[in-house]
């Protein structure tokens, strides 16, 4: 049977070997990190964004690289998913963007700070995360062949509108689904609505979105085509 000194030897040798291996892997990891994390793209603006991310404990609700709390959305790919305009609107007045929903604090970030956070998110989206977050793979099985491709829709519609509305079963459920909206509402109405929802319907909770005229043109043209 194992003696006490053998037990101690097992402990000391095992611990030393594992510590040695761990330090070795750490050295190798740090050699690979500059290219894997796209470190050359960490500009002073990105660094400022990270500083804001830390100072305001954004990780206390959101996750980034899957790390943080689980109260608010994962933000690793937010730049790709929502785009600059949506993120900026969210940073200015979160309650307006998700009316009556789970709340985010209002920070009143300056334009420079908004730019810094957007730059930080854009950088975060370029880090090689070994396949995280994974692409959801059960949807085709759940709804059969009827699932729509995201192609054909304007990029702006996918990033901005789908945050609250759904189309073809994709998107949020905060506003009504937009399938067939072009059959119900005409282009003039849609334009007035996008310019200022409450001017059309006083009790609407949809915010005035920071859209340029050209962007409104694009969305109106697309929505008008959604006849069924």
């Amino acid at each position, binding site marked *: 049977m194992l*003696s*006490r000194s053998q*037990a*101690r030897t*097992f*402990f000391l040798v095992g*611990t030393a070997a*594992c*510590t040695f*291996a*761990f330090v070795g*892997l*750490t050295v*190798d*990891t740090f050699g*690979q*990190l500059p290219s*894997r*994390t796209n*470190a050359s793209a*960490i500009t002073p603006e990105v660094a400022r964004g*990270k500083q804001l*991310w*830390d*100072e*305001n*404990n954004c*990780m*206390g*609700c959101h*996750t980034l*690289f899957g*790390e*943080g*709390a*689980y*109260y*608010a*959305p*994962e933000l690793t790919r937010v730049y790709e998913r929502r785009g600059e305009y949506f993120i900026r609107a969210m940073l200015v007045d979160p309650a307006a963007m998700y009316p009556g*929903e*789970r*709340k985010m*604090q209002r920070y009143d970030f300056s334009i420079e700070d908004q730019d810094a956070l957007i730059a930080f998110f854009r950088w*975060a989206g370029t*880090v*090689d*995360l*070994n*396949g995280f*977050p*994974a692409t*959801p*793979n*059960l*949807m085709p099985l*759940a709804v059969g062949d009827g699932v729509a491709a995201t192609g054909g829709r304007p990029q702006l519609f996918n990033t901005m509108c789908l945050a609250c509305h759904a189309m073809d079963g*994709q998107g*949020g459920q*905060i506003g009504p689904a937009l399938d067939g909206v072009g059959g119900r509402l005409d282009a003039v109405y849609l334009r007035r609505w996008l310019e200022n929802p409450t001017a059309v319907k006083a009790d609407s909770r949809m915010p005035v979105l920071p859209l340029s005229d050209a962007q409104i043109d694009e969305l109106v043209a697309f929505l008008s085509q959604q006849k069924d």
Partner: protein
Amino acid sequence: MRFESQRVAWWFFATCMLLFTLQLVYGFILGFAHAGYDGLHDVIPFHTARATHTNLLVMWLLCGFMGAAYFIIPDECDRELYWPGLAKLQLAALVVVGVTAIIGFHFNWWEGRKFLEIPRPLDYLVVVDVLMFIANIGMTVWKGRRLTTTSMVLFFGLLMAALLYLPGMIPTDNQTIDSYWRWWVVHLWVEGVWELIMGGILSYLLIKLTGVDREVVEKWLYVIVGFTFLSGILGTGHHYYFIGTPRYWLLVGGLFSALEPLAFLGMAIYAISMAKRGGRRHPNKIALSWTVGCAVMSFVGAGFLGFAHTLPQVNLYTHGTLVTAMHGHMAFWGAYAMLVLAIMAYAVPLMTGRHLHASPASTFAFWTSNIGMIAMTLAFAVAGITQVVLERRVGMDFITVQKEIEVHFWGLILAAGLFTAGILAQLWVFVRSGLPVGDLVSGAREGEDGYGAG
């Protein structure tokens, strides 16, 4: 209790109970927010409540470890603490720093780094405080009349915990590197050196409570902490799957995390077999319940649930979801909260001279809190798995899914109510035990701990 200076531990334990109770209050704020009732949002937003909830936990556990060390080390080393006054000063300083940090969280003064939210200036004060503690314990061990394996394991666990706090302070602009060092602190604490502390405290309790020969208990202590480090050090890799670090961490982390349950299983078998083997009928049965319970629950929460969550192919979907909260709650409860409650259950009657360990409230506290925590874990599991399937597998929108799982948070709140009832009973037992004014068992030898023959 054999030495006057051991009494200081009572003040650490009192701080524990106070902070623990406050931690539960913040837990309820988080639970209600998840269930859709965030009425306190303007005063205590979610991230404030969360940082407070987790940092109170870390603080009361550290307080408990320090109290345990101040109680155990004089007994093991057969002498008074080297600087009894410093121990009191050190507690006062720790409380001031901790309270300042918690208040700061409510005014947006923190670092947004999970578990290490304490602002940088206070980090330095924590380091100074811990150095005072380590110096005091170290001098007591050094000048002690006896050098035991238990006290060495406990001392080195505490020393390494202090040293491993430092990597968390390395500044960087790279989020990946930030996370890399942060896990050196958090992981190597809870799945590394804290387990040394756990092993040391458990072996002390088993020697005292079961009457099994020290030689046998301490031999197996080496084996258990050996397994802990064998799996835990490279097991850090399960935090390096998806943060920008190389792909080989999936293999290294996956393999060694799969070994982590072995260390916890070893701990559980160790505690149960020692408890069975000991012929001695110690009168403080509830302390033995907490001791064995700690080993068993840590195997389930940290060992088994940790294993299930850290398999790389599972973690790809569960990483960053409520499944983590499920594993986290039972792991911390089983491994560390129950450990501190175990040493308290043993030591408090000796310090106060009032033996309430056989009271119905003590038994109620043990069973109700454990059943409550198991129910909480189940509620988190249902919420977490639903989130994983709907959001990560099917691709539904985050907020839509969160609304779908609100109902499970009502389940969580009910379970947490049960848990809280247990903890309040424990608090009641502690308060009724009174101040540390019990008699010293002067000149006692090992085995005569003040409980009598039983």
